[in-house]
């Protein structure tokens, strides 16, 4: 069905290589999210899959067949754009019907699918309106409707929620997830928002500068990142990173009174490592190594922004009834098994 396979796919614009050769397999029915900071090549990668950009080298396979030189229309993929890209001169009904009209679907079958899609997406009352008369959320639903009726091998979403306001975004996020459960069709979704990635994905592909940094299930990436970039990108607030010196099997940092025993065995001659600890794994205890610079109380949790005497900054998540206040002098402690070690030079995870 909708398996998408990228084989040594690369893309250059002129002399600039935006995507170095990469391999990736998106399984049939999987919800895959491409995530990364802006300019990481995630949208370009999606457009390569769509066929809207030609690949510079490599092969793309869709459903087992080589699609490298197949035009976008013939790849059996439907795409939802960030700007919705509805046809402004057509009614909602005509917009949704357009791909079927192009494919020569019989009229009564068209009507049946439009009715079904409109019902599923709450658009029944708006079928005769123009896109210009709809709200952002409704427009995005029309764009999704236009994609559904084609019954594609896979859906491609290019940052579909970034033009919506925050409340609507959460709602649409759930709608898209439900749609995926119902249709069980492959979906490839591009976003810069790691929260969207975490909440929707079966599989996350983290990209940086056109390179795949790590591929995995959301919690797998969260708990077991391959490198400092993934560790820092996934999770909000971000993981704390501390430049530590190595002393035998312990690591030292001025922000902590005691050395931290490392569960990782360091190679001979290692003198420095970067230690990563998530804010929720740090506990505030009495002491005077750190100063509370700011606290953000969100209700269920608070985030305390701490500063050590040497300038190191830490974020700690607090949940209990007792929470720190601005100006407090404190210490932090944590379970050493929660600490992740990264090579100070290569930033690769040490396991």
């Amino acid at each position: 069905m909708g398996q998408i396979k990228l084989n040594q796919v690369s893309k250059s614009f002129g002399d600039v290589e935006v995507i170095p050769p990469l391999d990736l397999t998106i399984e049939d029915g999987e919800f895959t999210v491409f995530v990364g900071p802006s300019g990481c090549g995630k949208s370009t990668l999606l457009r390569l899959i769509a066929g809207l950009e030609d690949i510079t080298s490599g092969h793309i396979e869709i459903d087992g067949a080589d699609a490298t030189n197949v035009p976008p229309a013939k790849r059996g993929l439907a795409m939802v754009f960030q700007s919705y890209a509805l046809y402004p001169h057509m009614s909602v009904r005509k917009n949704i019907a357009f791909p079927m009209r192009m494919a020569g679907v019989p009229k009564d079958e068209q009507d049946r699918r439009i009715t079904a899609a409109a019902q599923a997406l709450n658009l029944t009352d708006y079928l005769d309106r123009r896109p210009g008369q709809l709200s952002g959320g409704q427009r995005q639903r029309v764009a999704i409707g236009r994609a559904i009726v084609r019954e594609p091998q896979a859906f491609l979403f290019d940052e579909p929620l970034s033009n919506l306001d925050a409340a609507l975004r959460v709602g649409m996020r759930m709608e898209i997830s439900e749609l995926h459960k119902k249709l069980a069709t492959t979906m490839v979704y591009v976003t810069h928002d790691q929260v969207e990635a975490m909440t929707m994905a079966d599989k996350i592909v983290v990209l940086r500068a056109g390179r795949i940094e790590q591929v995995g299930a959301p919690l797998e990436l969260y708990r077991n990142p391959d490198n400092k970039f993934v560790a820092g990108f996934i999770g909000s607030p971000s993981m704390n990173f501390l430049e530590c010196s190595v002393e035998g099997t312990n690591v030292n940092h001025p922000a902590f009174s005691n050395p931290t025993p490392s569960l990782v065995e360091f190679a001979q001659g290692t003198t420095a490592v970067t230690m990563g600890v998530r804010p929720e794994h740090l506990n505030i205890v009495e002491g005077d190594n750190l100063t509370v610079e700011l606290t953000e109380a969100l209700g269920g949790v608070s985030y305390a922004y701490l500063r050590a005497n040497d300038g190191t900054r830490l974020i700690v998540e607090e949940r209990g009834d007792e929470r720190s206040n601005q100006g407090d002098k404190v210490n932090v402690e944590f379970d050493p098994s929660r600490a992740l070690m990264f090579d100070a030079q290569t930033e690769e995870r040490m396991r």
Partner: protein
Amino acid sequence: MARSVTKQRKIINTAAAWAVSLLIFFPILWTILTSFKTEAQAIADPPVFLAFNWTLENYAVVMERSNYGRFLWNSIIIAGGSTLLGILIAVPAAWSMAFVPSRRTKDILLWMLSTKMLPAVGVLYPIYLLCIKFGVLDSKIALVFILMLINLPIIVWMLYTYFKEIPGEILEAARMDGASLKEEVLYVLTPMAIPGIASTILLNVILAWNEAFWTLNLTAAKAAPLTAFIASYSSPEGLFYAKLSAASTMAIAPILILGWFSQKQLVSGLTFGAVK
């Protein structure tokens, strides 16, 4: 903050605007007035403005002497045909320049525009000789082609500017939705650019309608449009101002009426929706 305009200032501005407009419009007004005078009143010194014996005699004479209908028909065919042909060629050209530009697209656009700066008379000989060679002197088809070519740079430029404002993602969506290139241009791009295409057509019809150099030089009797109709009253038996004016009025009336009814479209077209 809105600029403060005193009432007095406003009156002066309005009066000045009317004065300038009347000044610009005056020659046309004078032509129309003269067409209703007798030949004697037309050359009277001092000139008579409104107090003359209004007569339709000139129109009757002109209608009797020349076949207005044939000139009008030729004008319609030449202006309409060259515009239609130009649009058919310019839509795909502008599409490719706007949506799949190459490194040289800007240069080509400028080069096209530069051909408009060449004095037409510079190529009169070659074109005249070509027309003779192909046996199309004094034919509508030759003028349709020549006027189309002359105005093509402007049509392409206008359409290019319009197409540039259409978001590329919509065309990409059409491509994803299975539209072929032809369907993409026909069902998505063109309907979205209708206002732009309409004002381009209007402007081009007006330009072609008023074009006098080629229409006068390449026609004799068969294909002569309204420009030749006016010209035919300017010399043969000396100048007859009243009849010349009547002929002029009859020649410019259709395009003036067209322009009047489409002025809103024309203005929005010429300002390219720059203020959205």
